[in-house]
Structure formats: structure tokens, C-alpha cells
């Protein structure tokens, strides 16, 4: 599936919740389910700085696709990280660079990605796109 299709899938999942509690409960669940990042990546180098909830991010490229792993010390942040990874991990550099992550707006989480949020997610997305740019540059 491409990013947009995954996004649609996520939007459908979230359409089941009619109140914010259910939505956040689901995010918490997603946060707990987030694949544990390799301990070696939980270091200063992979830390997205300047935020209240810390986010670590690692990336690698395999056969033209980029695979991300990430972690955070806050569960809700991890939940959103989970969604971002589900959408972006395993996609091509091109797609990652260009995607606008519209699905976040549709499920009412766009706010969490605002650059002024203290959760580090916007810096994480920026970092993901930078990785994609870097991999693309290396290839090209």
C-alpha cells in the first residue's frame, strides 16, 4: 500500500470513535504496541531535541525503500509515532518527501504535528523527510 492508502485505512479506523476518550485510548494502545526501537538507537544522536517528550528516530534503506524505527518516552506521542511509521516506513524516498500526511488532519491529530507543539513530532517528521532526502541524494 502507498502512503495515501494507509492513510485512508487509518482514517477509517478512527472514524469508529465518537469521542476523544476512545480516540486517545486507541492512541495509547498504539503507543504500547509500537515496536521497540533497538536500545542502541536510544542515544543522543538519534534524539529529536527541544521537546518535552523525547523522540528517538532511526532509519535505514533497503532496496529503494526507507524503514524507520522510533520511540518516545510519552505513550501518546508513541501512539502517533506508530501511525507515522505505519504510513511512512517502507515507502520510497520520493513518496516520503512529497507526502503531506493529510490523514492526520482528518483524524484530528494535525495539531500534534504543529511545529510549536512540545511533543517533538513535527521535528520527527522533518527528520524523516531529511533522511529520505539524504538517501535520495546518495542514490541520485
Amino acid at each position, binding site marked *: 500500500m502507498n502512503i495515501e492508502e494507509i492513510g485512508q485505512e487509518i482514517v477509517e479506523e478512527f472514524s469508529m470513535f465518537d469521542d476523544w*476518550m476512545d480516540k*486517545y485510548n486507541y492512541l495509547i494502545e498504539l503507543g504500547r504496541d509500537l515496536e521497540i526501537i533497538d536500545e542502541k538507537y536510544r542515544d543522543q544522536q538519534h534524539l529529536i531535541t527541544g521537546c*518535552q517528550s523525547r523522540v528517538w528516530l532511526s532509519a535505514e534503506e533497503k532496496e529503494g525503500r526507507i524503514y524507520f524505527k522510533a520511540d518516545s518516552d510519552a*505513550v*501518546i*506521542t508513541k501512539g502517533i509515532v506508530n501511525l507515522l511509521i505505519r504510513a511512512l516506513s517502507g515507502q520510497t524516498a520520493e513518496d516520503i518527501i512529497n507526502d503531506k500526511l493529510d490523514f492526520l488532519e482528518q483524524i484530528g491529530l494535525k495539531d500534534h504535528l504543529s511545529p510549536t507543539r512540545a*511533543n517533538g513530532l513535527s521535528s520527527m517528521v522533518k527528520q524523516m523527510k531529511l533522511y529520505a532526502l539524504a538517501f535520495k541524494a546518495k542514490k541520485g
Partner: protein
Amino acid sequence: MDIQNIRNQFPILSRKVNNKPLIYLDNSATTQKPQSVIDAVSNYYTQINSNVHRGVHQLSQLATDAFEEARKSVQEFINAKEHHEVIITKGTTESINMLAWSFGEAFIKEGDEILVSEMEHHANIVPWQMLCERKKAKLKVIAVDENGVLKMQEFANLLNSNTKIVSIAHISNTLGTINPIKEIIDKAHKLGALVHIDGAQAVAHTALDMQELDVDFYSFSAHKMYGPMGIGIFYGKEQLLNKMPPYQYGGEMIDQVSFTKTTFNELPYKFEAGTPNVGGMLGLQAAIKFLSDIGLDQIKTYEDELLNYATLELQKIEGFRMIGNSPHKASVLSFLLDEIHPFDAGTILDQLGIAVRTGNHCAQPIMDKMGIPGTIRASLAIYNTTEEIDALILGIKKTQQMFL
């Protein structure tokens, strides 16, 4: 005290956030503003706006008189001896930076010592650190015990004839601790050290008397006492301020300029470079009137009751851990909930309309000392109610349910 009447003066308190009535418990970060403060600022711009000082025309006279009257309101409010001991800044942070720079230039030399405490806000740490670096002086740190109380014995041990200045928060923004500043001032003076008090968290909660305290310098921000942003006060004793060089240059602070020699104006102008924030100052004056009309003693009594109620009820919650248990505390409730990350808790409380602050509250050293990355902080003001505390408690329980 008629809290509903007080609440009605604050237009923002009737708004909703996330479809819930706003419960604003982030007052240590900034307080909300009563209508009288908002009006003081707009009336200024509607009626007498002008640049102050040296203006011959009537608007300039009106603005200057109003501005200087407002300075006198501050003088009276903190019982300073002279109105020119009241220096207008943009906030506590600027006040402390001004002090550290100017005091440093006048009085600090290699080997001198400066005392701060472990519970200080960054604004009362870093300017001193930088001064010490610049002048090869030493920054000494008074430790805090596990309840968040200043170790007074350690203070006494650190104090010596090399100590030039002690700079301590009146009330900690993270722990709520009220420090024994009178005792600190007296002890420091006995050894010839001067004292600056960071009053950012005190000024809305407790009556101040510069002369009785005999404090040398005192700083605070209007926006934490129901006044506007962008305005603050730096109080200093006249004979000290007279010995200190200006911090910024330009405008009213200058007496004579030529390219060969420049001389400076007298107090308070010496420390007020550039066009001052007249509107902000009139807002601060209105805030002082708001506080004085209720009465600082009344406010303290009410807020103490609220704090005691909240402390008692919150501590009944399983998994609740208060950070800061000084017997002398003011309107700050810093806490942790089980293993829940403060950011997660804050996010859920926000969904419930409850505004708390989470994080290290610009006081990282005390967080490091306590071995925690941050706290959830509910901080109270005169318009908060026991019902809001009850809502906070319910919110906390809901939060815990969601994460456990």
C-alpha cells in the same frame, strides 16, 4: 470573598477549550487579566498615547504623568522608599540580566562568590553563571532537601566574606516553597553580602515591603500578577543603583552625548533605555489596583485555603506523588502520577479543559536533583475555586484509568 464576582472580571474564564469549560491552572506561567487591566491598556491607546518625557505637547504630558504615576503605584505597592528605585523592564528575566551585568561590572572581581539555590528558575541561574565566567568569580549553590526546603545550615556554611551577592527565589515556581527571605537577607547582610530576590512567583500572592525586608534588589513580572506581558520591575536601593553602570544605552537614559564624551541621566532613567512600554505600565498599575482592592492578605488567606484543600485531596489519590512538600508553600502543586509521563497526563487533562503545565518548568537543576525529568504542575490564582480542584482530581483519576 466573592470569588464569582472576581471571576466575572476575567473575560477569558468563561471560554471553553476542547468543548469543556476552561479550568485554568497554569497561573505560575502567566495569570489571566481582569477587564480593568485590558481596558487600561486600550484606554491608553485610545486617549493619551504619546511618547513620554521631554515632550512639550499635552498628550506627551498626559502620558508622562500617567507613566510616572504608575511608577509611584508600584513604589507604594512594594513600599519602596523612593519612586526612582523602581526601574521598569520587560520582565523578571530582563531585570535579573540587568542586575547580573550591572552589579557584576560594579562589584564583582576574580575570586568573588555568588550564591544561588538549587531550586532557581533558569533566569536566576544562567545570568550568574555567565557573570562568573566573565569575571572568574565562583557560583555556589545552596542545596535543597527532599521536601524542597532550602538547607539553611548549608546556606550559613557557604556564606563568607567573599560572598558578594545572594540571589534566591522568594517562591519556587516548581516546588511552591516559600523561602525564608528575611532570614537570608539578615544573615547575608551580617557578612557584608547583598541580596537579590527573584519575586516572579511571589508578587501576586503575598504582600511585599522592600523597606521592612531591607532587601537590596527585587525583581518581578507584570504578567504573573494579572498585568500585561512585556513589562516588569527591577527594584534596587538607591545608593547601590547609583554605583552601578547603565545596562543599555539610548534615549532618556542619556544626559549628554558627543562623540568624545557621553554622560548618563540620573535614576530611574539611567536604567531605562529606549521608549518605555507606557501602555504596559498602565496595565500594571491597573493590576496593582485589582490586587489592592481585594487585599493581598485576603488573597493569601484564600489561596492558602485552596492550597490546603487541594493538597489534602490530591494526596488521597493512589499513585499521586507531590514534588515539593515544604511546610511553607504557596499555590503551586507539582506532582507525578504513577509512571505516567507528564506530557501524557497534560494531554489528557487538556482534553478535559484543564490547563496545567508539564515539563521541567525552566528549573532543570532541581529536576535533575530530584531525579525526575519533569512534573505536572497545577498553579493557583485568586480566581480558582474548590470546584476546579475537584475537577482536577476527577481529571487525574480519569487520566490514571486511561494509562493503567
